[in-house]
């Protein structure tokens, strides 16, 4: 066990990678709780895709990828909040349009570059082993901002998630709270760009929180489990991908391995957790055992 979980992290670049996934795991786990409670998985997914063109543009003009992602993230969080509160387009259609158009712009831009495939995969799936000091510091700063905001606005975000009408009646600006949460999700995507890429980060946000929801019935314990699970899966996934790549000579993408570990945890919780009945209720219960032939 030691050789799997401790030994890989004796080298500096692996230590940095570990630190990055631990921070990201906690960060994404915490934000994910509100994303899951608000049932905003699709919004989160859209944000992960809309950050992509910002990354590409920054890369093409030789600017910091971090700030490119940041600019795109803030812009898309603003657009998303406006789009989902308008009545002229249904929210899901609006999201789908925003998601695909931003993503397409990113792909068009990156396809003009010589090293097209390599760059594309780096942006989409990240290069965890290329995490350097600067990236770590950026990740830490973003984590500090996001976690502070979450702690500060905990009760307001909770009230808005539970009873938006009641929150409005009490005098809270629901649209402002929505913008805050969207910006927080976008910031997590920005923090995760280098390490796990823009596509897989949605799994880091959704899966730990959804798993925690299956196990417990309180927001506080849900948050603790979600953060812990995010960090733990990051560690385990990184260790497994390193072990398999080095010891067995099979290249395993670390970001994807982390996601596979997370999904395994989710399936385990689904099988054993007390929440499985609640989930069955939500999705309309188990399929019928016998089908009735159609009547004419």
């Amino acid at each position, binding site marked *: 066990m030691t050789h799997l979980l401790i030994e890989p992290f004796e080298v500096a670049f692996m230590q940095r990678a570990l630190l990055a996934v631990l921070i990201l795991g906690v960060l994404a786990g915490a934000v994910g709780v509100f994303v899951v*409670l608000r049932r905003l998985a699709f919004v989160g997914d859209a944000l992960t895709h809309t950050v992509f063109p910002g990354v590409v543009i920054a890369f093409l003009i030789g600017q910091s990828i971090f700030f490119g992602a940041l600019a795109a993230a803030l812009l898309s969080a603003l657009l998303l909040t406006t789009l989902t509160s308008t009545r002229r387009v249904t929210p899901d259609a609006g999201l789908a349009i925003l998601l695909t158009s931003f993503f397409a712009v990113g792909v068009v831009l990156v396809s003009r570059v010589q090293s097209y495939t390599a760059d594309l995969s780096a942006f989409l799936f990240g290069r965890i082993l290329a995490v350097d000091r600067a990236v770590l510091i950026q990740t830490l700063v973003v984590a500090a901002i996001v976690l502070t905001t979450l702690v500060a606005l905990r009760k307001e975000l*909770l009230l808005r998630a539970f009873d938006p*009408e*009641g929150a*409005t009646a009490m005098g809270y600006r629901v649209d402002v709270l929505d913008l805050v949460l969207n910006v927080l999700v976008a910031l997590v995507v920005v923090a995760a760009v280098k390490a796990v890429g823009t596509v897989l980060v949605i799994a880091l946000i959704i899966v730990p929180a959804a798993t925690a929801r299956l196990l417990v019935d309180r927001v506080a314990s849900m948050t603790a489990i979600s953060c812990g699970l995010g960090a733990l899966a990051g560690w385990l996934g990184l260790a497994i991908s390193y072990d398999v790549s080095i010891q067995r000579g099979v290249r395993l993408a670390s970001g994807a391995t982390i996601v596979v570990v997370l999904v395994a945890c989710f399936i385990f919780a689904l099988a054993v957790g007390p929440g499985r009945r609640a989930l069955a209720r939500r999705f309309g219960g188990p399929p019928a055992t016998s089908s009735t032939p159609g009547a004419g």
Partner: protein
Amino acid sequence: MPTEDEARAEALVIRHAAAAYDRTPVLEGVDGVVHAGESVALIGPNGAGKSTLLKAVLGLVPVVHGSITVLGRPPLAARREVAYVPQADTLDTEFPVTAGQVALMGRYPRVGWVRRPGRADRQAAAAALGEVGLADHAGRRFGSLSGGQRQRVLLARAIAQQARLLLLDEPFNGIDASSEELLLAALRRLRAAGAAVVVSTHDLALAHLFCDEVCLLNRHQFAFGPVATTLTPDLLRATYGGHALQLRGDSVILTQP
């Protein structure tokens, strides 16, 4: 014990008000006064504008004509002292929140941004749950309670808010008899303490039992006045149009409540 002056204080004054989401009013000609310690039932068929009127009092739907004055101020300025109680079954029953936490939410506007609820807030929330007969349910998940219990938790939230005007949207829909009894008892105590209560309801018997006045609505106001002289077969027939059937004597049946 409220003094004579306070008891007659105007909690809600509506003057020839029309409310509209955009340009066309969905509700017109509403006119009436609710005093502190009084309760009014909003009665009318589905889509009559009962919820719209509640939202206009909260300042969430614009008043395009006339005026609505809440505790002497415009609706938005009075919001801290107005509590809105939604229908329990509009809320997510899978949400991981306890009855005690929901009651505590009524304290959030007082606690203010960033700060966490203190001991006094927790005591107020616990006392409010006691008021609706759910003191020993504080740790239960909100969604695991019965419909009537959830409705009582939402009233507890409004009690914890210590509002002077309570707006309840169909609080008696589909709840059990004992919950109804406990809700009514809690509302009577609030009234005795000087709060004004506005209830939208389909239940004419309850309006008779609990309210001082009724407001008959269907896109516009048909009547606003004391229960005894306003909840009459003629006025109900006028309000409900073709959906009211005259029975023998004074009875009216509403086919589309």
